[in-house]
């Protein structure tokens, strides 16, 4: 892939704008609350698009196109099973506690609801995860640019990290959020022409269906047993593992996304943020799954012939290198000029993911670790300076992680694995904390700890596609994805059970301390007199119906 002047001009324009946004926002930063929490003053349309964009990182864009090529239309389950329902649940049922409690972060909510040790456990693991995720994202970006454009690895790392540092240091969370919205439009509008041209080249959806095996174009029909589909899962494990445990664990508890709703102007906006974000999320498969399905269809005999026919590149092991599906589609279909837009969209997805991680790390480190355990009761200016300093430190750790990842190939897999151990059980802690007033701090802490250990043990006792089984390969699972669902499911069940048992054996907080934190002791936000489109519950119901409809259409 070779870029020309117009392509570089688009990339330079994008870099100039994201840094300019940092300078514009800088004038509004007067306190640590402005820098780390945007002063809770962001309009609804921005929080909604930032909510979805914080998740629209490189793994999402490149990964879902790759999955579309590998698994076909079943990849939509990550949206229509593994996202929308959890986003609606977050908006309708959980935001009243996150927003109403006035907690500045998800770990701070845990401190109010349970105790300091539960907060500390969550804050430390979350801070570690975000900063390492940011580093892995940076590594993946530099590696991709090295392979596709021949850019120097070090140059890519330092330029990308430098730009993210510039705008997050200048404008904090608001700057990151504003750029996330710009990045959202860039990714969607920059990749949409690709969908149109490659779909047209493949002869339209009807021709794709005619040329692909039926497993590639049906979302549910081949999920009755694990051996009838390429994902190696059945409907029940998909619904419980992905649709319930993993999906709710991520969308309802991960501060990286929840933070975007917590900075809304009022409770109603905070509740509608994830619900309105679910609208583009529902349609996102058009941009990130469909090109993958089309790519594999284009390689079928009879769809394209000749030396110019599109092909997904081959990996060193001889199989298809699915990760390169999107870059190779861009190189094949985009002329100079638009190619710059496509590459910039990819850069935007990496930088969006990195900035999201860094800003979430900032808030959690400053409020939940530094202010809570090290330096309490200092001036606001002190915490503002610490927040800014943590931005620089967070980016430097990310850069270090990227270089470590370069030297140790499987550190990425290892870190992703550790993240799944930590994230898997988390939803049980929150759902019990918010909806069962008898849950105690001791219960939450030990539940979280044993849930994480159970996740690690499940991975160590199962083997799938050569991974896992490091304790003993006692059980064989059909695919890595099915194994991930199993790990998440076991960790949820163990956390839930241990939290309940330990809670029943320990003394709960009095009701007076739980008002605004637990469902049964909290006054519900009134929506009387509001039109249906301003009510979180009505909007959520509509989205659930539409999502079920989409699942039925692509059954």
């Amino acid at each position, binding site marked *: 892939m070779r870029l020309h002047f117009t392509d570089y001009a688009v990339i330079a324009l994008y870099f100039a*704008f994201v840094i300019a946004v940092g300078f514009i926002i800088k004038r509004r930063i007067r306190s640590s609350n402005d820098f780390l929490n945007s002063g809770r003053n962001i309009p609804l349309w921005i929080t909604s698009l930032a909510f979805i964009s914080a998740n629209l990182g490189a793994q999402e864009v490149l990964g879902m196109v790759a999955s579309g090529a590998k698994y076909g239309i079943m990849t939509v389950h990550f949206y229509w099973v593994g996202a929308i329902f959890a986003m609606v649940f977050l908006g309708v049922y959980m935001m009243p506690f996150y927003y109403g409690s006035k907690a500045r972060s998800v770990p701070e909510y845990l401190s109010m609801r349970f105790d300091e040790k539960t907060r500390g456990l969550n804050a430390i693991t979350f801070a570690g995860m975000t900063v390492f995720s940011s580093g892995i994202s940076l590594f993946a970006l530099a590696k991709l640019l090295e392979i596709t454009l021949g850019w120097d690895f070090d140059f890519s790392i330092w330029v990308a990290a430098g730009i993210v540092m510039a705008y997050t240091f200048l404008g904090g969370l608001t700057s990151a959020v504003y750029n996330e919205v710009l990045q959202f439009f860039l990714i969607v509008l920059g990749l949409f*022409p690709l969908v149109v041209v490659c779909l047209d080249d493949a002869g339209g959806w009807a021709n794709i269906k005619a040329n692909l095996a039926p497993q590639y174009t049906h979302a549910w029909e081949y999920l009755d047993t694990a051996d009838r589909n390429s994902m190696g899962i059945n409907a029940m494990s998909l619904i419980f593992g992905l649709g319930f445990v993993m999906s709710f664990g991520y969308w309802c508890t991960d501060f990286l996304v929840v933070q975007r709703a917590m900075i809304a102007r009022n409770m109603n906006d905070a509740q509608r943020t994830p619900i309105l974000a679910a609208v583009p999320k529902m349609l996102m498969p058009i941009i990130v799954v469909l090109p993958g399905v089309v790519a594999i269809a284009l390689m079928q005999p009879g769809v394209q012939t000749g030396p110019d026919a599109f092909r997904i590149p081959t990996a060193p092991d001889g199989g298809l290198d699915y990760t390169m599906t999107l870059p190779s589609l861009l190189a094949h279909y985009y002329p100079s*000029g*638009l190619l*710059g837009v496509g590459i910039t969209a990819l850069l935007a997805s990496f930088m969006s993911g990195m900035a999201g991680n860094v800003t979430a790390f900032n808030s959690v480190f400053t409020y939940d670790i530094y202010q809570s355990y090290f330096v309490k009761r200092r001036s606001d200016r002190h915490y503002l300076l610490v927040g800014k300093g943590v931005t620089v430190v967070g980016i430097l750790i990310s850069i270090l992680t990227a270089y470590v990842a370069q030297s140790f190939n499987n550190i990425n897999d290892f870190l992703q694995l550790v993240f799944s151990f930590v994230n898997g059980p988390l939803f049980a802690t929150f759902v019990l904390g918010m909806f069962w007033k008898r849950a105690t701090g001791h219960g939450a802490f030990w539940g979280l700890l044993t849930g994480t250990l159970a996740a690690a043990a499940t991975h160590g006792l199962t083997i799938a596609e050569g991974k896992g089984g490091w304790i003993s390969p006692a059980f064989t699972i059909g695919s890595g994805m099915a194994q991930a669902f199993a790990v998440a499911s076991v960790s949820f069940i163990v956390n839930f059970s241990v939290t309940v048992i330990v809670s029943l054996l320990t003394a709960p907080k009095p009701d007076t301390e739980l008002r605004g934190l637990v469902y049964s002791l909290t006054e519900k936000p009134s929506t009387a007199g509001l039109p249906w489109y301003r009510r979180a519950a009505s909007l959520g119901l509509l989205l659930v119906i539409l999502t079920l409809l989409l699942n039925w259409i692509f059954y």
Partner: protein
Amino acid sequence: MQTRFTDLRFIIGLFFALMAGIVLSGYLTGTGAKLNLWSGLSFGVFGVFMMVSAKAEGDEG
């Protein structure tokens, strides 16, 4: 005018308008690819729409 620059819609609109200019200039001076023409026009329309819809008083978001 200066306050418009604090409105995110204006910033996004300006970005897409300038990007449309680059893509269209590539069409006119180099590639001649129809995809650049249609995409550039679409980016331009979107950019102008966002700029026009921006609030004059700026977005104190």
